[in-house]
Structure formats: structure tokens, C-alpha cells
């Protein structure tokens, strides 16, 4: 069998594992960014929803994206189980595994909007509905031969498909769930409900960063011409620039070189370059990352002011930076790289407003679809399930105890000794 074929499949298989590893990054990022009383819940529900999301994606998700269908949605290849291979391109199962890992990332991002106050049952139901009605539709539009891919929309690894879609669901959720207890004072001022462990958050970001090489460089779908190295280079530059910009900007604005903001800057750089990594020059990757880092700082402030509680900054990192990343190819896509990877060159290369227009259309339609459908689903859920949110008392004692029966940090919680079943 052709060795390039095998290497391509091996590379995408490895990339799929790297993307799955990003969930470990999210576990640490989210747990570190939230409070101790919710840490076990926040970490553990991620593993659970990966499990649930996997089964749904296998059953229907993959088919809705890549099955034979129309320009709105795919309608075949359900309950995926193809072991045959053509001997060229990617083996179907390798592609399935890679796509599955992406879908799970979007799901985890969406759950960022649930943090610290949603019932476990809300996670269960929304994991299923999001994985059927929201993510596959947008993914089909752009990657599965749907109507946006026909327009030449550039989204190499998923700034829109994965990050913006997840963030829009998170936005719908956080609006419906309302702010956490104690986030806003009566006079309207915001409180900083600081996460309990910046070290976890930083390590989470680094794991995500490493996993991102699977996400972006793996999206080359092969090793031919070793183009994945170029994609990795752009990815690394944008992540670095995002961290640098965010720390500088937050320091200049507030006088404090805030750590959570800096970490969000690195992630914003990564999210922004995700769409454009295969379309732009390295200098443009630096600018895309810098602007991503800048945007995330202002976006965090904006959501605070707008009284939209964004506990782990999913809206700013994946939403605002995802939009910027998608639009960025409309400015910076080079003619050569666009010819290689699809679409047209950007505004700065004499491409006029054509590609930018396509990108705007893609962001607006995908973002709107993800938001509206998620909002409707969550509204119906909140009526049927009476509320998506735990009771006030449960929120105060923490979701570790209310939803799972034990604390992630039992020794650090007050008055729990009476509940311990220790045997001498």
C-alpha cells in the first residue's frame, strides 16, 4: 500500500488524538477558572459529555455533516461503521475519528456558558440536541459541501464551525441561565468571581495550545508537501502574539498585567488563526494574533458591562476571536495560498471585498443559526424541565455536592464532616 497514503492517515489519526487531548486542556482551564465548590463537577461533566457526544456523533452527527443530502444538511452514513478504504485520501474511519474530536470541542465550548449554575440534566439533554441540530448543520454548510462551501468560504480548521458555533450556544445559554449569584451587585457593578486556581488555568491553556497543532496542522488532512509545518508555524505565531497583546493591553488599560486575561489572549490568538492558518503569510499571522489578543480584552469588559456573565470567557475567546479569525482571511488571504486551499485572495492582496463579503456572510449566517437554534432549544428545555438552573441553595453549596454528592476538594469545604462515611 502507498506509504504516503499510510502517512497521511497516521498524521490525521495522531492529530485526532491531539484534538481529543484538548479536552484535558478544557478540563483544567474550566476548573481553574471556576470556584472550588464546582471544580469536580466542571471537570467531571466534561468527560461525561465527551462520552455522550461521541455516541450521538456516531449515530447521527457524522451523517448529518458528511452524508449525501442537500445544501442544508447531510442525510446518510448514520451509525458510522465503514472499515473499507479506497487506498487514497483518508480512510473513512480516520476521518470519522478526526471529525468526532472537533464536534466534541464545539460541545465543550458551548457548555462554557453553563458553568457553575446549570443542572446536570441540562447538560445531558443539551449535549444530545446540540450534537444533532446545531453543530452538524453549520459543519455541513461549510465543510460538508453545503451552501457556504459553494461560496468559497475560508475556514481552514474551524474558527466559525467549531469555535463560533460553540460560543453562540454558550451565549444563548448564559443569557437564559442569567448571571451566577454574586456576580452583580444591586447597584449594577460587577464582582470578580475569581477562579480558584490560575495554575490549572495556565496549564489548561498550554495543553490546548499543544492540542491545537492537531486541530490546525491536522486539518491539512495529510503530509504531502509537508504543508502542515507551515500551518503549525502560523498557529504558533498567532498564539504567542495573542498572549503578548492581551497582557500589554490589559496592563495599559488597568495598570495590572492580569494573568487570566493573558491566558485568554493566547487562546484568542489560537482561535483567530484557526480559520486563516492555511491562507495567510506569517507576518499576517502575527497581526491576526495581536488583534485577537486585543479583541479578547475589550470583549471581556464588554460582556461584564452588558451584564452577561461569561464564567470562563467562552464568548470572548471563542466568539469574538472566532469572528475576527474568520473575517481575517478576507483581509490577509494571499493569492497563492487561496489558490491552494480554496476561496479568493483578501482585500490587502487586491482581491477587493469579495472574500471579505463571503466571510461576513459565513459568520453572520452560521452565528445566527447557532444562536437562534440553541436559544430555542434551551428555552423549550427550560420550560419542559422547569428550569435549567439549580436552586439557589444548590448553587451556594456548589454543584459538586448538589449534582454529584461529593466535593472535588472535600478537605477544603466547611461542615462536611458529618457526611463522611469513613471507616477506621
Amino acid at each position, binding site marked *: 500500500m502507498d506509504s504516503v497514503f499510510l502517512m497521511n492517515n497516521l498524521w490525521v489519526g495522531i492529530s485526532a488524538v491531539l484534538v481529543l487531548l484538548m479536552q484535558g486542556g478544557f478540563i483544567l482551564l474550566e476548573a481553574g477558572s471556576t470556584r472550588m465548590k464546582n471544580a469536580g463537577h466542571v471537570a467531571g461533566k466534561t468527560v461525561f459529555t465527551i462520552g455522550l457526544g461521541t455516541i450521538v456523533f456516531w449515530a447521527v452527527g457524522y451523517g448529518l455533516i458528511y452524508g449525501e443530502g442537500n445544501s442544508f444538511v447531510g442525510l446518510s452514513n448514520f451509525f458510522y461503521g465503514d472499515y473499507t478504504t479506497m487506498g487514497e485520501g483518508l480512510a473513512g474511519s480516520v476521518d470519522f475519528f478526526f471529525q468526532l474530536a472537533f464536534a466534541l470541542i464545539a460541545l465543550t465550548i458551548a457548555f462554557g456558558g453553563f458553568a457553575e449554575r446549570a443542572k446536570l440534566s441540562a447538560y445531558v439533554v443539551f449535549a444530545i440536541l446540540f450534537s444533532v441540530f446545531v453543530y452538524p448543520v453549520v459543519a455541513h454548510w461549510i465543510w460538508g459541501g453545503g451552501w457556504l462551501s459553494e461560496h468559497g468560504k475560508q475556514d481552514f480548521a474551524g474558527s466559525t464551525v467549531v469555535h463560533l458555533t460553540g460560543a453562540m450556544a454558550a451565549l444563548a445559554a448564559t443569557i437564559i441561565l442569567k448571571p451566577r449569584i454574586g456576580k452583580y*451587585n444591586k447597584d449594577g*457593578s*460587577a*464582582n*470578580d468571581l475569581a477562579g480558584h486556581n490560575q495554575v490549572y488555568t495556565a496549564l489548561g491553556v498550554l495543553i490546548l495550545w499543544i492540542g491545537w497543532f492537531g486541530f490546525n496542522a491536522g486539518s491539512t488532512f495529510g503530509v504531502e508537501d509537508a504543508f502542515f509545518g507551515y500551518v503549525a508555524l502560523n498557529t504558533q505565531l498567532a498564539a504567542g502574539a495573542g498572549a503578548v497583546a492581551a497582557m500589554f493591553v490589559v*496592563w*495599559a*488599560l*488597568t*495598570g495590572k498585567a492580569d494573568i487570566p486575561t493573558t491566558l485568554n489572549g493566547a487562546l484568542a490568538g489560537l482561535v483567530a488563526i484557526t480559520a486563516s492558518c492555511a491562507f495567510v503569510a506569517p507576518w499576517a499571522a502575527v497581526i491576526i494574533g495581536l488583534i485577537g489578543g486585543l479583541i479578547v480584552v475589550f470583549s471581556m469588559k464588554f460582556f461584564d458591562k452588558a451584564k452577561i456573565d461569561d464564567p470562563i470567557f467562552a464568548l470572548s475567546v471563542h466568539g469574538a476571536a472566532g469572528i475576527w479569525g474568520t473575517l481575517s482571511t478576507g483581509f490577509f488571504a494571499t493569492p497563492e495560498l487561496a489558490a491552494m486551499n480554496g476561496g479568493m485572495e483578501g482585500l490587502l492582496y487586491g482581491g477587493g471585498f469579495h472574500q471579505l463579503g463571503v466571510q461576513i456572510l459565513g459568520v453572520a449566517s452560521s452565528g445566527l443559526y447557532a444562536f437562534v437554534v440553541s436559544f430555542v432549544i434551551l428555552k423549550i428545555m427550560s420550560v419542559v424541565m422547569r428550569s435549567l438552573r439549580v436552586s439557589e441553595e444548590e448553587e451556594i453549596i456548589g454543584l459538586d455536592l448538589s449534582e454529584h454528592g461529593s466535593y472535588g476538594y472535600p478537605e477544603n469545604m466547611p461542615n462536611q464532616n458529618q457526611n463522611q462515611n469513613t471507616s477506621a
Partner: protein
Amino acid sequence: MKEYDQLKSWREQNIKTVSGDSIKLNEFHDRLIIATVHVAIEKVKSEWGPAPARFSFFIMGSAGRSEQSVWSDQDHGIIYQGPEEVNPYFLKLGEEISNALFAVGYDFCDGNVMASNPRWCKSTAAWADQLHDWFDNESWESLRHFSTFFDSRVLVGNEEYLAELKRIAFWRLEQNKNLYLRLIENVSHIRKGVGLFGQLLPNSYGDEAGTINLKEKVFFPYVNSLRLLALWEKLTEPSTLVRFKRLESTYGYLENYKNLFIILLNYRLRFQHDTKSYEKVHLLEVERLTRKEKQELKQMMKNGYKLFSDTRGIIEKGVRLENK
């Protein structure tokens, strides 16, 4: 106690008449504190008998510097001329004074700089030993204690005990000029209130959102600079304003800063005379300021940072010359 309640209501009735003038306001605080301390002394005398030794009661912090605002916390100590055995009496007196001052409206000191704390209530000999220990250790904490101690003046009793302790301190500094560098280090972390673009940096979260802490961000650079310079020139005066006046003939650059500091003292009172508690008294709500006031505030802060860096330069240069 009835007397304390009377003093408290006297304060409440009269403080408004002086709350717009920093000098009058501080004279008012002095009178109130002296009256309160005398009541406390009498109360302890009635329970424990007359004082077993001569003593003096002194104040530190903003009271020591005559820079109290409408609300203030307490910082004070006792020096007595007697054997160690009488210490319990004066600790008891210190406790009574602390409670009395609290009763008339002065919050307890967070850092426990009060005569009820053995560290701040000692015999003349023990005080001298403690000063030597502070300089021997030259740790961040011990020098912080010394800086607190140095902004002091006697309100009740013999002034000579405190003056003698300050002479000991000057002698120690004379012996080892490098201590000045340590004292600069001790206060060189300034929490900035002006950002890169010259914008004000109010607190962004919580109860204090939208406010600037005047004490930490505006006052401290002035106060710390003038304390350092007073130590360098062996000037015992605790008041920042008096320190300015006494030092400006030697250090011409101080004049402009002095004028800003005078504006600052009254500026603060203008915004704070209707504050209801000590926790809020240092917090300036940025949104209440006019455009011009914001500009003034920025000028005061920027100049405060510059004053500190100029002063630091002068003393460091002086130490280098001495060490040659």
C-alpha cells in the same frame, strides 16, 4: 460609657463646622482624642489606681501627620518611664484608650498599631531596645514598623521620651547609611492610579468599582517621600506639610510639590466631608469628578510618582557619596 457617648455626640454635632479645612479638622481631632484619652486615663485610675510611672501617649499614622480626614482609624502608642513590672497597667490603659476611641468614632487599626499591643506599649528602655532590634534586623517588616513609628507626636504627657527615641533612630541611621536604601525599598511599591495613556485607573470590581483609593494611590508617594527626606535631614516633625515647609529652603524642587500637596489635602476634604464610614473615606468616585478635577487628580498622581523618584535619587546619591 456615658462620657464616651457624650464625646461621640459632641463630635457628630461639631465636625461639620471644620470638615472643609484640613488644619482646623486636625485640631478638632486632636482635641477630641485628648479629651477621650483623659477620660480613659481617669477610668483606669478609678479601677486600677493611679499610673505607677510617668508616661506619654503618642499618635502615629495620619493622626501623627495631622492629615486625618473626616473619618480615621487609630494608630497610637505609650512610652512609660518605669520598670517592666508596670507593663500590665499600661497595656490595660492602652486597651481602654483603644475601646474609648472606637466608641467615639475611630475604627480599630487593622495592623494593630495600638497601645493595647505590647509592641506599641513599652518602657523607655524597652522602646530603645526595640528600635535597635528593628535596625539590627532591617527586615521588611521591622523597617515598616519603624516608618510607622517615625510619623509620631505626643498628645498627652512628656514629649521628651519620644524625642529621645527619635534621636536614637537618627544615630543608628548615621552609623549605617545603607539603612536609608532599605527604607526606600520599603515603600517603593507604588500602586499606580494613572495608566499608560494618562487615563485614571479606578478599581474595576466589587463594592469599590469606579473608585480610586486616594490614600494608597495619591497620598502615599508624597507622605513617603517627605518621611524619607525628613529622616535624611534628621527632622523630627511628623507632618508632611511641615516637613515640606522646613525642607524647601534646602531642596528647591519641593516647592511645586508642596503646593500640589496643599491642594490635595483640601481636595480630599471637598469630596469626603459627607462620607459615612472609615472604609469609604479614602475612596474617590471617579464619575463624580468634573473634567477639570480629573485632570488635577492625574497631575497630583503623576507628580507624586515623580516626587518619589526625585527624592529617591537624591538620597541614593547621598548614600553613595557617603560610602565612598
